[in-house]
């Protein structure tokens, strides 16, 4: 089916609720070398992650740095090969794709980088940046190309378009640069956008503007979006489901409202408690923060990976057996022995 010619309304009817991307028991380990060849263990960056993503659905993966969320994202983009498990996009395992089919896959998956200035080539104008993916993917008619470039810029509300086209990235503000990055991700009309902390480098006053723009695009084009973020307070407005990651594993999955109202995993609770709202009362009290730091991913703790920091840890269980995912409510799961 040619996505370019279908209207959003049609495709919504045809595919709502269907699974587009399925990640099954994904493990991405990086081997450590001793003296350049000896085996010295593995960094288990992603260690057993499974989820399904439907058409037009936005999910957020929340976690601290080093929890494996970027590795998960790069595996979905096809930049890391899974050590075990598989990623299936529209029925095709992406690790089986050859280089030509990989190009097909990449044209369906857009990537919004964290640092817009680093993501845009400094010596290319906005128009050539946006044209390049079209040239690579065989849009040979220059008129069609320039038409699609203009349309993409209008969609990300970079106007007047004629002024922006000949500019180089350094001539744009941070917010405008991020819009160009989004336009580039959108120009091949992908079905999935992977956004790696798309607003963390931007000022607070324009973050909301960019996130609202992404939400509008998501709804208009029935895009699926995976947000990678560490900021719980922004995701609630811009995604349907939240996955909380800790030390390479997803510890809790829930719909946004369920997670905010009824978070279950002790790590999720700690994250929520540590996130501040602008409230003068905050200065009067101390925050309750779990002691310690995230574990090494080379030698993760036995059992639940959060148990050394968890105040609810059950001796003999949490430090011995890895907790499975317990279902607490429809589409709300937590990997924690407290719910056995």
């Amino acid at each position, binding site marked *: 089916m040619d996505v370019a010619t279908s209207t959003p309304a049609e495709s919504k009817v045809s595919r709502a609720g269907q699974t587009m991307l399925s990640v099954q028991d994904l493990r991405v380990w990086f081997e450590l070398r001793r003296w350049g060849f000896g085996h010295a263990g593995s960094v288990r960056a992603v260690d057993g992650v499974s989820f399904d993503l439907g058409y037009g659905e936005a999910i957020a993966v929340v976690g601290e740095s080093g929890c494996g969320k970027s590795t998960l994202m790069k595996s979905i983009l096809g930049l890391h090969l899974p050590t075990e498990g598989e990623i299936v996009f529209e029925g095709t395992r992406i690790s089986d794709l050859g280089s030509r089919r990989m190009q097909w896959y990449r044209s369906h998956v857009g990537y919004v980088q964290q640092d817009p200035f680093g993501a845009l080539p400094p010596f290319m104008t906005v128009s050539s940046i946006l044209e390049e993916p079209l040239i690579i993917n065989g849009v040979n008619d220059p008129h069609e190309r320039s038409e699609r470039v203009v349309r993409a810029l209008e969609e990300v509300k970079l106007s007047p378009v004629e002024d922006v086209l000949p500019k180089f990235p350094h001539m744009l*503000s941070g917010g405008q640069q991020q819009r160009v990055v989004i336009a580039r991700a959108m120009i091949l009309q992908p079905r999935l956008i992977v956004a790696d902390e798309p607003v963390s480098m931007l000022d*607070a006053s324009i973050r909301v*503007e960019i996130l609202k723009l992404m939400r509008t695009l998501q709804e208009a084009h029935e895009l699926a979006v995976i947000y990678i973020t*560490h900021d719980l307070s922004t995701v609630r407005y811009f995604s349907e489901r939240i996955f909380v990651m800790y030390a390479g594993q997803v510890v809790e999955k829930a719909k946004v409202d369920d997670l905010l109202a009824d978070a279950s995993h002790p790590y999720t609770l*700690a994250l929520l408690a540590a996130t501040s*709202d*602008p409230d*003068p009362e905050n200065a009067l009290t101390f*925050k309750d923060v779990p002691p310690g730091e995230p574990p090494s991913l080379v030698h993760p703790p036995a059992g639940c990976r959060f148990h050394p920091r968890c105040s609810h840890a059950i001796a003999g269980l949490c430090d011995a057996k890895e907790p499975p995912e317990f279902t607490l409510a429809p589409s709300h799961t937590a990997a924690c022995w407290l719910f056995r």
Partner: protein
Amino acid sequence: MVNDSLLRIRDLKLHFRTTKGVVQAVDGVRFGLGHNEAVVVIGESGCGKSSLAKAVLRLLPRNVDTYSGEVYLNGTDTMKLDEEAFRRQVRWVKMSMVPQAAMNALNPVLRVGDQVAEPMMVHYGVGKDEALAQARRMFEHVGVPTDFMQRYAFELSGGMRQRVAIAMSLVTAPALIILDEPTSALDVLTQANIMNMLKRIKEEMETSFILITHDIATSSELADKVGVMYAGQIVEVSDAFRFFSGPLHPYSQKLMASVPRLRADVEPEFITGQPPSLFGLKPGCRFAPRCPARFGRCDQNPPVYEVDGREVRCWLYEETGTLVEAAKEA
């Protein structure tokens, strides 16, 4: 009246020469800070927050065009001291700073304990053993195990390195510490830990803080007072309690509305437009082009009014406020 018993800044200017012209990074700042008080300076990037910190501590680059104004610390005008006297009497003795990304600026080939001890030896001329003993006390204050003093920076996590950088600013027991974005590169849990630690230090050591940040939500953890900076000027100074419940300046109001909240179901807004370029600023209120409440007077420079002990640089308070600083001529 805004409490300024410790630090009083009047009409502070710091302009830089660049190839494109003069950047008015700090342009007539009026600000004050009391003893054992924590003030948060919030603003968008490029509004001159970090330049303000540098101007107060006189850590100036070579391309300074204008550096003028009054900075009173405990009643003495530090601007009248020459560089050597400022270095001996003020910097790191009465005021110290944790610069932006300090945790990545630790010396990689020195043990962190020695780095923390160094300011004691330089500024107070004490012996190494005594300086290390003082450094050990600081490690306890910031919550780093004292056996970490033997380690090098790369052996510590980001949060630990930030604590070491804060210990280095504390070691000489200055009255005022300026923290430039102390938590922006850290994770949520580490951020909360650092804020807890700063609160404790404020109680235990009776230190004053200037916390420079763009993260309004986290800043509320420490703030007694809030200063809002826009385009090189402080546009509002208010006690934290009333600021977070109802800011005065239209920019502060917009800024507060742009903060996403976890515990209240309020859709965040954004501020349309961009901050002005700090090259060749035009007369008139600098926020006026983006301001929803602008009116005829806004094309003249606004003076500073005091409204119930809060200061605001906005024409809207001409009638309700009392004038504390006249508008400057264009």
